[in-house]
């Protein structure tokens, strides 16, 4: 895996990409949101202070999924009226990028997927079923969420968002799906719920008294 190195256009700090396909990163020092172009890094925004972390996961947390090691390299943080959740951007050993979501310590791993005729946000109703990859998914909750911030490396540009809609799907087997309406074209993610202990996570955040 190559680790291209450049400097923050804002503060000059060294920027190291852990994943060669990363499109966006955040300068750890000045919190500038940087987007990779063909020639250099461009500052597109600034991350506001994030709230105290409730997730035990952090950048550089390592774990194992499906017998493959992964490392956490980025994160998108969302809030909604009943709390918040993190989408941790992980890179599997071998270079495949995936997401480890932590919604109040309920963990799931998912991968970007393609499917034709995805429903529009206003066509969704709780209880609807869809079949993707020969698996029936039932819409369990539609969450109007609020983009709260980003950290680290992401596989796409993601900044300056406000309100986004998510549709979460469950199955009878522990598999799950998410439709992300951040962009005009809905994005589908397919994955499954995972147990904290099964991920064998290292480099976790420590909590005082625990």
């Amino acid at each position, binding site marked *: 895996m190559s680790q291209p190195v450049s400097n923050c256009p804002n503060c000059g700090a060294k920027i190291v990409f852990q994943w060669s396909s990363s499109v966006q990163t955040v300068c750890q020092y000045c919190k500038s949101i940087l987007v990779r172009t063909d020639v250099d890094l461009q500052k597109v925004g600034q991350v506001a202070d994030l709230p105290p972390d409730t997730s035990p996961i952090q950048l550089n947390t*390592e774990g194992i999924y499906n017998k493959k090691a992964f490392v956490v390299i980025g994160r998108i943080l969302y809030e909604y009226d009943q709390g918040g959740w993190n989408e941790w951007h992980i890179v599997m050993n071998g270079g495949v990028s995936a997401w480890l979501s932590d919604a109040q310590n309920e963990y799931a791993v998912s991968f970007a997927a393609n499917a034709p005729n995805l429903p529009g946000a206003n066509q969704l109703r709780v209880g609807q079923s869809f079949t993707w990859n020969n698996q029936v998914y039932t819409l369990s909750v539609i969450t109007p969420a609020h983009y709260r911030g980003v950290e680290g490396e992401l596989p796409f540009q993601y900044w300056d968002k406000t309100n986004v809609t998510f549709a979460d799907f469950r199955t009878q087997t522990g598999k799950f799906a998410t439709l992300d309406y951040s962009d005009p074209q809905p994005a589908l993610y397919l994955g499954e719920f995972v147990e*904290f202990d099964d991920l064998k996570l290292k480099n976790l955040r420590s909590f005082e008294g*625990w």
Partner: protein
Amino acid sequence: MSTGSQTPPLPGPPKPQVKAMNCPSCGAAIVLRSLGHAETVVCASCHSILDAKDPNLQVLQKFEAATSEVPPMIPLGTRGKLKGTDYEVIGFQRRSIKVEGVRYDWHEYVLFNPYKPIRYLSEYQGHWNDITVCKELPTASFGTVVYLGEVYKHFQSSDANTNFVLGEFPWQVRVGEHAAVTEYIKPPRVLASEKTANEVTWSLGEYIYGSEIWKAFNLPGSAPEAIGVYENQPSPTSTNVKAIWGTFAAFAILLFVMVAGFDVASPKAVAFESSYVFTSSASADPKGEASFVTDIFNLEGRTSNVKVSTSAAVDNSWIYLNYALINQDTGQAWDFGREVSYYHGYDSDGSWTEGSNHDSVIIPSVPSGHYYLRIEPEGDARHPTIPYSVEVQRDVPVFGFFGLAFLALLIPAIAITWKSMSFERARWAESDHPPIQIGNSDD
């Protein structure tokens, strides 16, 4: 996958920790234990529900709490180890349902671990449940739900109301909030769906004894006695019912095999047999000596039983035989009388029969030795001659013992089944599907 060590240490984001703050309404101390997971926190002194995400702890709701309100049995802040994971009690609420005008209250405890999903305990009259949120989706069909391949039966649908809250909650809790709760059971588990306007949440509860809770959280004293039968309480006998009928079946088969085996294996040695003809003229003689003795035969082996069988060609007639089995060596005698009678005919109900051509009797504990029979026949005077035969068998299997063994197995099986059925009746009496009451109406 290391970034190397060229970067100096970063200040990092603010560290979450137990925060001490004050209630904006009454000034009492507010402690946040769940490190930023709390959405709402309740002031214990003035019962204000506060926005835990707001640095100023904005008041979201105030509610009245009766002084009679029962405090949590596990105090907030108590840590314990449940099924191998450490948890701290951070929240407590009382909820209730109304069934036929009667209110039923239960308590729920919110358990927190910074690495694990929130877990809950519920308590109703000393019955506890260990509750987790389902990740898999149950599938409902008429009256039942299938979850992870197991069938749960519908128990109750009700409207649950939140009446009292204390501590912190990782969701927006409010007093007066309603949820449509539907419960399905497969003891010791209960599957519940809670439906609000926006969401359906399924949770799985597993019955846990109060004593386990007391042990897990190291609580003083002992857990209150559970009252009555709870919806998903494991029946003390339900597992035994299958086991005992299984055991019963196994033993019944074993008995059958033993009976068959004994029957086949038994020597049933015929020690003596002979045929005679009874002539009534002999007995017609009032002073006639009708009795006679048989030849001597040997009864061998250990002290055992002797079967004396009589077959007689009786046809709407009878013969009565006074027997004596006499030991020639010791003079010991066993006296017994046997009747062989067989009647048949036809009446308004159809044909009928009574009796048979055969009779047998078992004489127990007969030692080995040389024996003979003294036989004194009496017969139906209307039938001048009745041929009959006598057979003496040594060491025959006695099946009455097996019958007793069979009963000895059957009785506990029935008793346990009855006990289990009573338990299930008590369980389902509280459901939406109470069993039909037979006879007495003891309310």
